[in-house]
């Protein structure tokens, strides 16, 4: 996946320096930043503040930022802010999700299923430590490549490989355990 983190055609790498509206960057990236903050463990009650922090930094730094990798830069800010919130916040111990995801669901049945799946996702992500969780979210949910994650996190690629591999294994096992627990006969769960 290209690391432009923007809608196609926006802020492509290597473009000449031209004025870019902050709003353009915001609208092209808000959803992803929001979603990533959430998946990195920022509590719902703090999502507004965390997203605001990300984009205040973006606003302040945008003019001096390297135009080649806006996506990586945004993810780096997002990961940093999420880490701050995870460490500083008294997060809710349970039920980290609000009902807001219902907005995107087309039908009550589908909504319910999706809601449960997202809850499960967050429950499983909670089982990963912060480094593995970050690597896993960027790799498996945001679908960044290992070199891209390496750039975002500022760690070498072998480290990223190692974290992603460990996180996958842990996530896999946790999901399997969950399904065995909720569906002991082993029936397919979708």
């Amino acid at each position, binding site marked *: 996946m290209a690391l432009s983190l923007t809608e196609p055609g926006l802020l492509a790498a290597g473009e000449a320096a031209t004025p870019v*509206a*902050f709003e353009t960057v915001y609208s092209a990236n808000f959803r992803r930043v929001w979603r990533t903050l959430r998946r990195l463990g920022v509590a719902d009650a703090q999502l507004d503040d965390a997203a605001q922090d990300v984009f205040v930094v973006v606003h302040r730094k945008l003019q001096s*930022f390297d135009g080649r990798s806006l996506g990586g*830069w945004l993810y780096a800010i997002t990961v940093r802010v999420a880490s701050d919130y995870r460490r500083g916040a008294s997060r809710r111990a349970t039920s980290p999700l609000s009902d807001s995801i219902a907005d995107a669901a087309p039908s009550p049945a589908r909504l319910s299923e999706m809601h449960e799946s997202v809850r499960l996702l967050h429950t499983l992500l909670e089982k990963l430590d912060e480094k593995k969780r970050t690597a896993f979210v960027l790799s498996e949910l945001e679908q960044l490549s290992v070199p891209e994650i390496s750039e975002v996190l500022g760690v070498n690629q072998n480290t990223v490989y190692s974290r992603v591999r460990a996180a996958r294994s842990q996530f896999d096992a946790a999901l399997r355990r969950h399904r065995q627990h909720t569906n002991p006969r082993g029936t397919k769960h979708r």
Partner: protein
Amino acid sequence: MTPETRAFLEQVRDAEDPTPEDERRVLAAVRATVAVGAAAGTGVTVAKVSQWLASLGGWKVGALAACVAVGAAAVGATVTEPSNESLPPAKAAAVAPPPQRRPAPPLVVPRPTAETPEAPAPRQEDPARRHPPPSKKLVTSQSLRDELTLLETVQLDLKRGDGAQAVERLESHKTDDTQLLAERRAAMVLALCAAGRPELAREAASEFLSQHPTSAQRSAVERSCGAAEKRLGD
């Protein structure tokens, strides 16, 4: 990973997008924070924010009152307006706004040119991000402008170190019909501190903190002499 895990991830990958309201709300909050930082700098003043408001006539003020800074802001946000004018970081404590629901004119920044991406700023540089519930009251843009002007003047008094003048100004404009009550109360705390009246500042801080516990100005007040003395006395 197993195919089942992959299928699960596929299912949830795009499942929790924010709502358009989330997007609008956060954007308004970002604008307000940036405006506070700008107002505390040297180039963009509250008067400019006031002009902004005038040009937006009819908007609910709850959001835009957010743009008011009292005392210099700790935000440190550097704003580049369409003229590409850069502003230096703010130096003192600031008062930031309530939440925002409506968009403001775009702030245009130039295309990035530096080679190295910059890391996020330290947390302490990004204050003023708490946003209390929005004002339920609509006001005329004139009354809001008057309040903005008052707070801007108080800010200048404080920058000059003239706390007594700032206190006098706030006292003389006391009114119950204020849309920026939290901002004015916070300004009073800072003004009393600057005027060398810590006991009164402590009282004002106590009142402010009890009545505006979630205000964006809370951190500024808590860093003031009034709150500091209160902590010592606890």
